[in-house]
C-alpha cells in the first residue's frame, strides 16, 4: 500500500482521524508520519485551536454583522438602495459605513444639538438596549467592546437600584 500523502513510499502507519464527524483512515509512510505528527501536535496547542475557531468565526463574522437583526436589512440591501432600515443599522454596519459617511460629509464628528430626551433614554431604555448590544458584541467576539458594555451595564443597574 502506498502512502496517501506522498504516493511514493510504502505506508507503514495507519492513522484514523475523525474529520467533520466522518471517520477517515489514512495510510502514511515513515517520512510523512513525521510531518503529520508535527502538524497534529501544533493543532493541539491552544493558540492553534483558537485561530481555528476565530477563522471559522471570521467567515461567520462576515455574515452576522451584514444583517441588521432589528429591521432585517442586509448590507447588500443597503448597498443597492443606500437607505438604512432603522437606527440600529448604523451600529451594525458601522465598519462598512464610516468611510461612506466620511466621504459624504467630510467629517465623522457630530457637533449639533443634543437630543433633549437623551438623558431619559439613558435611564429608561438603556438597560435593555445595553443587554442587546452586549449579546451582539459577544456573538461577534468583540471582547473589548463587550467588557466596556458589561461595565456600563453594571454601573447603570446599580444606579437604577440606588434611585429606587
Amino acid at each position, binding site marked *: 500500500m502506498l502512502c496517501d500523502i506522498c504516493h511514493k513510499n510504502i505506508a507503514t502507519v495507519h492513522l484514523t482521524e475523525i474529520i467533520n464527524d466522518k471517520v477517515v483512515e489514512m495510510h502514511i509512510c515513515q517520512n510523512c508520519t513525521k510531518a503529520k505528527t508535527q502538524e497534529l501536535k501544533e493543532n493541539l496547542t491552544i493558540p492553534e485551536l483558537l485561530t481555528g475557531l476565530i477563522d471559522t468565526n471570521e467567515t461567520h463574522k462576515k455574515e452576522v454583522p451584514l444583517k441588521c437583526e432589528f*429591521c432585517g436589512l442586509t448590507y447588500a440591501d443597503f448597498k443597492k438602495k443606500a437607505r438604512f432600515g432603522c437606527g440600529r443599522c*448604523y451600529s451594525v454596519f458601522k465598519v462598512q459605513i464610516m468611510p461612506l*459617511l466620511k466621504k459624504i*460629509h467630510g467629517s465623522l464628528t457630530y*457637533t449639533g444639538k443634543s*437630543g433633549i430626551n437623551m438623558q431619559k433614554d439613558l435611564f429608561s431604555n438603556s438597560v435593555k438596549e445595553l443587554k442587546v448590544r452586549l449579546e451582539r458584541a459577544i456573538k461577534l467576539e468583540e471582547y473589548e467592546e463587550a467588557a466596556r458594555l458589561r461595565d456600563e451595564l453594571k454601573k447603570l443597574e446599580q444606579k437604577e437600584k440606588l434611585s429606587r
Partner: protein
Amino acid sequence: MFEELLNNKDTWLSGKGPFSEIIFSSRVRLARNFSDYPFPLRATTIQKEKILKSIESVYTKVSNLKNVIFLRMEEVSEIDRQFLLERHLISQEHMRAAKGKGLILSLDEKIALMINEEDHLRMQAMASGFDLKKCWETINTIDDSMAQFVNFSFMPNLGYLTSCPTNAGTALRASCMLHLPALTFTKRINKVLELLAKISFATRGFFGEGTQALGDFFQISNQISLGLSEPEVIDNLAGVVNQVKEQEIDAREILLKKHKLGLEDNVWRSFGILRNCRLVSSKEALSHLSILSLGLDLGIINSISRELLNNLFIIIQPAHLQKIEARVLREGERDFIRAQIIREKLNGI
C-alpha cells in the same frame, strides 16, 4: 379641501420679506426618526399607523403647532395631494403610496410636518424672503418640544440617524429659492452652479422635475449635515446665498447698462404674450412670468404688483388650475384655462 389656501395672502409664497425680489423664500427642514421602529421604507403598515397615531396624540401639545391641521394622506384626494406638492408643502415621495403617511400643516402654510415620508418625521418651516434664522428658530422649538414626547433615534457621535446617510447628523437641510433671470440671461449661471457644487451646496430647479430650472428659479441647499452645528450650517448657506444674490444684482446692472433696449423689448413682449395668449403651456408661461418679474424689479414695468406676479407663478400649475375651476381638466384644456386665468389677472389691473 384646501380651497381656503388658494386665497392665503400671507404665506411664504407671498413675495414679501427681506430681499424678496431675488430671494423668494427660505426653508429649514429637520428629519427625525422614532428609535423603536424601523424607518418608514422598512416599516410595516401597522408600524406606520402606530407612529401616525402617536404623533396624532401629542401634536396639539407641541409648541408652535397652533392653528394646524392633521391629515392622513390616504384621505386626501390625488388632486389635493398634487396641489400640496405644487405649493411645496409635501414632496414627490410623499405623494406616492399614501397609506400610513400623514401631514401636519399650519393654516398659514409656514409649517409642514410630513409623517412617514422617507423618515418618520420631516419637519419644515418656511418664510418668504431671506429669513433662514426665523425658520430655524421655529423648527428648533418644535423639535425640542416634540422630543419630550418621542424618543428620537440618536447616537452621540453621529447625531440624528436618518434613512439616507446624506442626512445623518444634524439631519438639517436649509434652502433658499432664488430668482436668477439675469445670471441665466448672461449665461453666468453655469459658473455659479459649478462653484456651488464645488463647495458642497446643491442646486436644483424649483419648478418642474429634475434639474431643469423653469422660470429661472433655483433652490440652493446645504449638502453636509455632519461635522457642523445647526447654526453653522445655516450661516454657511446664508453666506453663499448672499453671494449669489450679489452676483445676480451685478448681472442685472450689466444687463441694464449694456442691453437696456433689448431687455425692455423682452419684458414688453412677454407682457404682450401673456395678456393676449389663448393657449399657453406652464413652461412657456413660467418663462414669460420670469422676464416680467425681472422687468418689475428693474422698474421697466410698474403697473403690476409683485404679489400678483408671485401668485401667478404658483396658480398656473395643473392642480391649482383644477382647484380654481373646481373640476378635472384634460391636458389640452389646461393650456386654455391657464391662458384665460393669466389674461384675466393681467388685464384686470
